[in-house]
């Protein structure tokens, strides 16, 4: 892009206007750039809140309509795996927060290490989720022609609907985790190359906002899908 200002003032060359290599030319300074990117990320997260919110809203409409089927659906879940995964994801949020802290303090290797730890815990979560998916599939709990669960025939179609929500919601969450893992690897390479320090750590911070948001989604999914206390069913 050219450096000729649109307001007719004299062109500014990079020689006389040396600035931080990651300061975009349309920002006054790094502080303004940081605030703008934080605000922009929260605008995106607000669309994400409403995206998951819409699915959760549909979930609650049917949960209120079919409380017994929802309680039985939750009983099909492995509460130990779900609980352990919740803890694993919380640990990954802690390591993510510490990665941002290390970036702020200019600790290059510490940033890379904490990003890597986040990637490891995130992958652990995905592996456990994969085991659960595999088990559900073999238990006949995948909606569609493979759905063979029929312990209570009258409720089977409604339990299948619960499982549609289960696979849909955890699947969307898992998709976000995979994207997050990609972002983590990208941030690790940038941190390794020494891009971040006290004056510029925005990308790690923004990535962290995304990771923590995905953690928050799971904080709600865990009780909603695994821990519905038994409506005393028939």
């Amino acid at each position, binding site marked *: 892009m050219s450096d000729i200002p649109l307001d007719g003032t004299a062109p500014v060359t990079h020689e006389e206007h040396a600035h931080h290599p990651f300061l975009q030319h349309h920002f006054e300074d790094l502080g303004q750039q940081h605030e703008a990117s934080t605000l922009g990320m929260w605008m995106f997260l607000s669309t994400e809140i409403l995206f998951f919110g819409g699915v959760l809203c549909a979930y*609650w409409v049917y949960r209120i309509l079919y409380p017994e089927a929802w309680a039985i659906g939750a009983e099909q879940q492995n509460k130990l795996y779900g609980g352990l995964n919740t803890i694993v994801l*919380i640990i990954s949020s802690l390591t993510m927060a510490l990665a941002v802290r290390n970036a702020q303090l200019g600790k290059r290797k510490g940033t890379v290490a904490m990003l890597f730890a986040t990637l490891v815990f995130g992958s652990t979560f995905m592996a456990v989720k994969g085991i659960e998916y595999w088990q559900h599939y073999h238990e006949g709990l995948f909606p569609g022609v493979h759905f063979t669960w029929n312990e209570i025939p009258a409720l089977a179609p409604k339990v299948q609907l619960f499982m549609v929500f289960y696979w849909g919601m955890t699947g969307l969450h898992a998709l976000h985790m995979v994207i997050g893992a990609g972002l983590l690897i990208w941030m690790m390479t940038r941190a390794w190359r020494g891009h971040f320090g006290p004056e510029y750590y925005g990308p790690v911070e923004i990535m962290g906002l995304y990771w923590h948001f995905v953690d928050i989604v799971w904080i709600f999914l865990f009780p909603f899908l695994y821990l519905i206390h038994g409506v005393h069913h028939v």
Partner: protein
Amino acid sequence: MSDEHAPHIHVTPMWIYIAVFLALAVGTLLTWWVSTIDLGLMNTPIALLIATIKAVLVILFFMHVIHSTRLTWVVVIASFLWLGVLFVLTFADYLTRLWKIY
């Protein structure tokens, strides 16, 4: 103000991160424990309350909203306001469709 004006850094003390993490872990165990007790109609509101407290802790401390600009606060609060509109209007419809049955 210098051209290289850096962002206002709030380096959160280590103990806050650890304390928030422990609170989240305790909240998870509490959620699981409460779900094993029959509290009748109160099970769901309690689970929702714990999850909401956990989410607020993550947003304020892990996501640094507590140190963010007021404009960021507006966007965060507005997001949940719209989420509230989504739920209130939807259930104003669905819950009243069933009123003859109840």
